[in-house]
């Protein structure tokens, strides 16, 4: 070309060349890339000469954008718009199977890909233009004009995306994922699942096995992904779906894996599984099935590792922890079998923020499953003990335990038999759980005694309490041992030792076993745990010593040298108690038969002789009697209570007694008597012939038609002995309530004095004044005082009117 380029005709011609080369009119269909290198260089020179670089570039790019927006993108979307219309008309989601969806998307994407590729020469030209003429374009993204083009493509696509597209793409990826997952699982489970019969359907594509098109799906899928990836569209269009599918399958897998088995650590195995699945799937998606991830683009590699760690592994922990938290109640109950699961949870809790959820979920589980009247105290306590142990594993600092177990403690406090159960199982060898705990030789840590910081605690390793620890308890109190925890339910040792004392008394007085070795041992353990100086434990010590002393006194009184033995009809031994140190006894009256009293008196004399200036007060209703009852056809050898012995001794002299008469002779109340007689009825010795009248059943002489004898004895059903066994385990000690009543009697004289002087007083005043006068001796709440006063009113010792108590006039 010459330098005379200024003539209009020439200009016209030149402009046409430029227009054609850069397709300024948007007629890209003619593009064949026909211009050679040389020609292109000439055109560029021409543009430079006329100084229209910027102008041409603007026009050229604009033409591309318009074509994208107006032609290519609408064409791409039209595939799906048709679909969405179809769907709306047919209103049937399953009208199109995965195969159809697959092929539709594949067509659309490859079409898009082709048209996008066809722009590449054009973009290339524009790049040259930019290089040669220094024209500029608005560079929104780094990476040159090609990136700029992709950006525009993405923008145009998104601006026109139809709503049905997400649905479709979801379907597409789901189908592909299913195939992938099926093969993956199939590969892993091959060894184990061999026995299962040949499935009729292919698990991957839901088609019949012989018509399986998994491979087709995979192929199409890889192709689509490759094309989208090249256009930089994959992440934009499908990223969400890709990851949500993964998250879904992780959740499912974790839920099924963790169902109902807590005896294995799962987290490592799950981590490995997630890694396999995620890497495998992302490999398929991002590498288009063309090989390993390691050979892929480094950008994709980092993308995969990042998302693996940040999203999927985190999701795994989250899902795993929530699943386990929902099962936590069972896990706790099954401790120590569930130790591995607990360790898993502990590790996961550090990586997730689910502590609060754990606390609230476990608390509500405990509330609904444990703390209701249908559960035995034993079970509640066992659960509490397991919880203490299990939550220790989760959180050695004891903060979780503190938070979770508060309602349990409160509940146990409300149950009457808690203390008794705890104490029983402490001293019962068969319940090893607590028994072993007792042997731990460390003093109890109680809430009410503030503990000093242990100076030997190494300060270098000190760590602050977690933020959840909003309670005021010190660390040592939170990490106290199990017995301390149990004692802390009540917050005082006295309740326990009082209960222990009652149980000990019961045991001594029901077994009459002079062997105190075991009790001494437990007492030593208790002393270590509860502190030597506790006055109540001292009392227990005296009680045990009483038993040992009694043994000695008995053997000396009953020794052969003792002349009194001749006088006695039967051997008497005695449990000699130091009344001051024993809990108070249930007072029951019983007048023993003459002969028994005589022999007991002989024993008393012997005792007085042995221990000068001391004498014995018998508790006639307590003890144990060996009797031999000789009937006509049989002889019974029994061990009975004194009351029972007294009854049968009376029947020896007279074979028919009414309750009334028997009661006046023995001074035992009628109700008690009736209860005791049952024992002889079950033995078949006594029979109730009419209401409250009992006769002796001797039975026939041996050998004389014994068959008839039984018929005569138990023939009429109305006279059959009631099969009510007496409750042998009945406590001989006064119940805790009775003891308390006795304590409250201390107040009575004060109250009488008050009311004499001040005529009438309301409950509050009485309570306040008692607090002032009877400081510290006995604690008494207002409710308790009210109950006490109300009982007095019922017995007519008080009058209650208008909210005021006063003494009755007499």
């Amino acid at each position, binding site marked *: 070309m010459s330098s005379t380029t200024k003539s209009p005709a020439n200009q016209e011609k030149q402009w046409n060349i430029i227009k054609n080369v850069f397709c300024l009119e948007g007629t890209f269909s003619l593009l064949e890339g026909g211009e050679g290198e040389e020609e292109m260089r000439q055109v560029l020179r021409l543009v430079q000469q006329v100084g229209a670089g910027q102008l041409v570039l603007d026009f050229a790019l604009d033409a591309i954008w318009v074509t994208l927006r107006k032609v290519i993108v609408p064409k791409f979307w039209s595939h799906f718009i048709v679909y969405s219309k179809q769907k709306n008309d047919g209103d049937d989601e399953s009208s199109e199977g995965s195969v159809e969806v697959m092929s539709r998307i594949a067509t659309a994407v490859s079409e898009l890909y082709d048209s996008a590729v066809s722009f590449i020469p054009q973009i290339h030209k524009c790049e040259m233009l930019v290089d040669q003429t220094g024209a500029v374009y608005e560079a929104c993204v780094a990476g040159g004009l090609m990136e700029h083009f992709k950006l525009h493509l993405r923008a145009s696509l998104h601006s026109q995306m139809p709503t049905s597209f997400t649905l479709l793409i979801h379907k597409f990826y789901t189908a592909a994922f299913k195939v992938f997952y099926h093969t993956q699982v199939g590969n892993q489970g091959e060894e184990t699942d061999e026995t299962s019969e040949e499935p009729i359907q292919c698990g991957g594509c839901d088609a019949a096995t012989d018509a399986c098109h998994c491979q087709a799906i995979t192929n199409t899928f890889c192709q689509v992904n490759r094309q989208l990836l090249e256009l930089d569209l994959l992440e934009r269009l499908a990223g969400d779906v890709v990851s949500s599918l993964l998250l879904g399958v992780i959740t499912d897998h974790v839920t099924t894996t963790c169902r109902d088995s807590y005896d294995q650590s799962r987290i490592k195995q799950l981590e490995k599984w997630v890694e396999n699945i995620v890497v495998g799937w992302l490999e398929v998606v991002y590498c288009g099935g063309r090989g390993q991830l390691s050979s892929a683009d480094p950008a994709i590699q980092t993308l995969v590792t990042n998302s693996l760690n940040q999203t999927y592994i985190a999701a795994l922990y989250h899902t795993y922890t929530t699943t386990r938290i929902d099962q936590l109640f069972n896990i706790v109950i099954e401790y120590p079998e569930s130790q591995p699961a607990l360790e898993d949870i502990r590790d996961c809790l550090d990586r997730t923020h689910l502590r609060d959820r754990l606390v609230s979920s476990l608390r509500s589980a405990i509330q609904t499953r444990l703390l209701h009247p249908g559960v035995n105290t034993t079970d509640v306590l066992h659960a509490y003990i397991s919880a203490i142990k299990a939550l220790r594993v989760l959180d050695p600092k004891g903060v979780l335990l503190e938070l979770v177990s508060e309602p349990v403690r409160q509940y146990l406090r409300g149950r009457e038999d808690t203390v008794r159960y705890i104490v029983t199982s402490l001293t019962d060898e068969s319940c090893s759980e607590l028994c072993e705990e007792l042997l731990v030789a460390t003093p109890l840590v109680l809430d009410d005694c503030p503990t000093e910081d242990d100076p030997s605690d190494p300060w270098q390793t000190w760590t602050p309490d977690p933020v959840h620890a909003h309670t005021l308890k010190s660390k040592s109190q939170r990490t106290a041992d199990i017995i301390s925890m149990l004692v802390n339910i009540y917050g005082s040792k006295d309740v326990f030792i009082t209960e222990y004392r009652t149980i000990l008394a019961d045991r001594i007085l029901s077994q009459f076993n002079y062997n105190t070795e075991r009790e001494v041992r437990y007492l030593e353990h208790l002393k270590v745990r509860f502190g030597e100086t506790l006055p109540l434990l001292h009392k227990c010590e005296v009680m045990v010593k009483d038993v040992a002393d009694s043994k000695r006194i008995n053997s000396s009184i009953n020794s052969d040298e003792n002349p009194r033995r001749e006088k006695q009809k039967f051997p008497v031994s005695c449990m000699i108690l130091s*009344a001051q140190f024993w809990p108070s006894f249930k007072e029951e009256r019983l007048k023993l038969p003459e002969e028994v009293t005589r022999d007991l008196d002989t024993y008393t004399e012997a005792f007085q002789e042995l221990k000068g200036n001391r004498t014995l007060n018998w508790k006639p209703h307590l003890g144990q009697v060996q009797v031999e009852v000789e009937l006509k056809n049989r002889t019974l*050898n029994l061990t009975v209570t004194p009351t029972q*012995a007294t009854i049968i001794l009376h029947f020896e002299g007279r074979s028919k007694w009414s309750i009334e008469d028997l009661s006046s002779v023995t001074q035992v109340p009628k109700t008690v008597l009736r209860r005791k007689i049952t024992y002889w009825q079950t033995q078949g010795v006594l029979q109730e012939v009419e209401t409250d009248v009992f006769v002796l059943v001797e039975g026939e002489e041996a050998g004389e038609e014994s068959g008839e004898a039984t018929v005569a004895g138990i023939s009429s059903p109305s006279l059959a002995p009631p099969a009510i066994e007496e409750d042998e385990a009945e406590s001989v000690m006064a119940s805790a309530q009775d003891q308390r009543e006795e304590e409250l009697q201390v107040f009575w004289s004060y109250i009488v004095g008050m009311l004499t002087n001040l005529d009438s007083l309301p409950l509050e005043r009485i309570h306040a004044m008692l607090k002032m006068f009877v400081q510290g001796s006995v604690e008494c709440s207002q409710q308790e005082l009210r109950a006490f006063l109300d009982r007095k009113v019922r017995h007519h010792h008080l009058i209650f009117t208008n909210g005021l108590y006063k003494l009755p006039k007499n």
Partner: protein
Amino acid sequence: MKVRIKGWTGVATWRWVANDDSCGICRMPFDGCCSDCRLPGDDCPLVWGCCSHCFHIHCIMKWLQSQQLHQQCPMCRQEWKFKE
């Protein structure tokens, strides 16, 4: 019917035969022990004076040791003599 008692194990509480319930010195019950003792009965016996007052032996011994001039019964101020 014949009933034969083969053995009788009874329960009784022991007490001191004294004219009072508690020791006039330590105010503890006689059947308990003085404030220095841990075990009642043989380990902490009672003693009677000629004046017929009685105390825990440990209590009265302590009292007598603290008296400089006259050994008197803390209850009646008579001269203290152990009753034989």
